[in-house]
């Protein structure tokens, strides 16, 4: 990560607080109308990564719904999150316009046995949500376009909430301090292990 100055540090802190402490408060209004983002420069990177990671996350929720070990209440939560992921992908793609990510361009490829037990499934889900939270945290602090920052902040709020829920399922504290912002280089390296491009050469 590049070095950051005091102002950037404070913005990261605010974004982090929004993402972790305020997640529950903000998750509700996430469906409210937002100004249309007009991503500038590197903003596209946060959104493009978000779209591919959300597709991967949606695939996780799809498979988790078919896995054993989740209670009825947990399944309802998984179902809601799956619907929320669809909404996230749509919102990001609207912002990306011509750069929108098509679902068929990427496929999630999870490790063998990733859903064999609830604990393993939750571990993988936590990993994916951590990628999203870390990247959105970075984007909410540093995107140039205000509406893009707002969108990333809303997505961050929801995914931070899901991350906290998954940590709870795993028996860990919901949050262990502020989440770490992730660069696309870091987050991309992890995401690449979970996706392929079907119909495209290796």
């Amino acid at each position, binding site marked *: 990560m590049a070095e950051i100055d005091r102002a950037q540090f404070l913005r990261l802190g605010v974004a982090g607080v929004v993402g972790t402490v305020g997640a529950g408060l903000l998750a509700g209004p996430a469906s409210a109308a937002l100004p249309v983002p007009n991503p500038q420069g590197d903003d596209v*990177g946060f959104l493009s990564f978000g779209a591919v990671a959300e597709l991967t996350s949606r695939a996780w929720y799809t498979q988790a719904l078919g896995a054993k070990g989740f209670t009825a209440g947990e399944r309802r939560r998984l179902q809601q999150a799956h619907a929320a992921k669809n909404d996230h992908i749509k919102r990001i793609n609207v912002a990306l316009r011509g750069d929108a990510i098509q679902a068929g361009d*990427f496929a999630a490829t999870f490790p063998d046995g990733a859903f064999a037990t609830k604990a393993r499934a939750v571990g993988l889900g936590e990993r994916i949500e951590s990628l999203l939270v870390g990247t959105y945290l970075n984007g909410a602090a540093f995107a140039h376009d205000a509406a893009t920052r707002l969108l990333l902040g809303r997505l961050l709020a929801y995914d931070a909430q899901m991350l906290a829920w998954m940590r709870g399922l795993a028996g860990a504290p919901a949050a262990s301090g502020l989440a770490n912002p992730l660069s696309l280089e870091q987050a991309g390296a992890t995401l690449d292990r979970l996706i392929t491009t079907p119909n495209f050469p290796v």
Partner: protein
Amino acid sequence: MRVALLLATALVLAAPAAAQAFTVYGAASLSSAFPVIDGAPKYNFAGSNQLQLQIERGAPADLFASASPAEPAALFREGKCSRPVTFATNVLVMVTPKSNPAGLRSVYGLRNGNHRLAVGTAGVPIGAYTRQLLRRMQLTSILSTNTVSLEPNVNSIVAKVGLGSADAGFPYFTDYLAAQNRLRVFRLPTWAQPPVRYQMCVVKRPGADTASANRFMQRVLASRGRSILKRFGFGLTPRR
């Protein structure tokens, strides 16, 4: 006398026939695979955007195969081409000369600047895809912090890097395969890859050899054509 007259007539008739040989206008990245699929046509390989322009101006093309859907779609809208058909896919890679004199270890190494890059112009598909990929990776700045040579098609990118005139370049994976004795390849992140889709269409113009163009199209889409494309490193879309 009669024989000489017949011969002269035959020559006169033969000349226009040769000039009207079935002609395929193809993206430069198809220049290795297409002649293996069918050696008969006359080929004109160049940047897809240049070929589109030539076809719009009435060039004697019968079939157009582009490295992106944008060019055939434009010709289709103008009524100069049949509905385009997707027949192959590709991915972008970064290449350096085999000896990698700049000591690059990944695309992120280009952030340091002061390297020589060979990149497609913004108008040619490889250039548009490269810019899309760099935007996604938040690396557009490398186009201003390095010395960039803008190339009209993918073959000139490979040539420039292969000769050591550039420290790195961004061609398709298939172009690397065709020149791998001279190049070193660096994979680019999967998540940031733009969807590179090749499309072809039959050109509509007075005197076009539509029958041959349709036969060529079927040859590319047939099992043998697909297996040749695959051998050259292209990806394949599911059969229609």
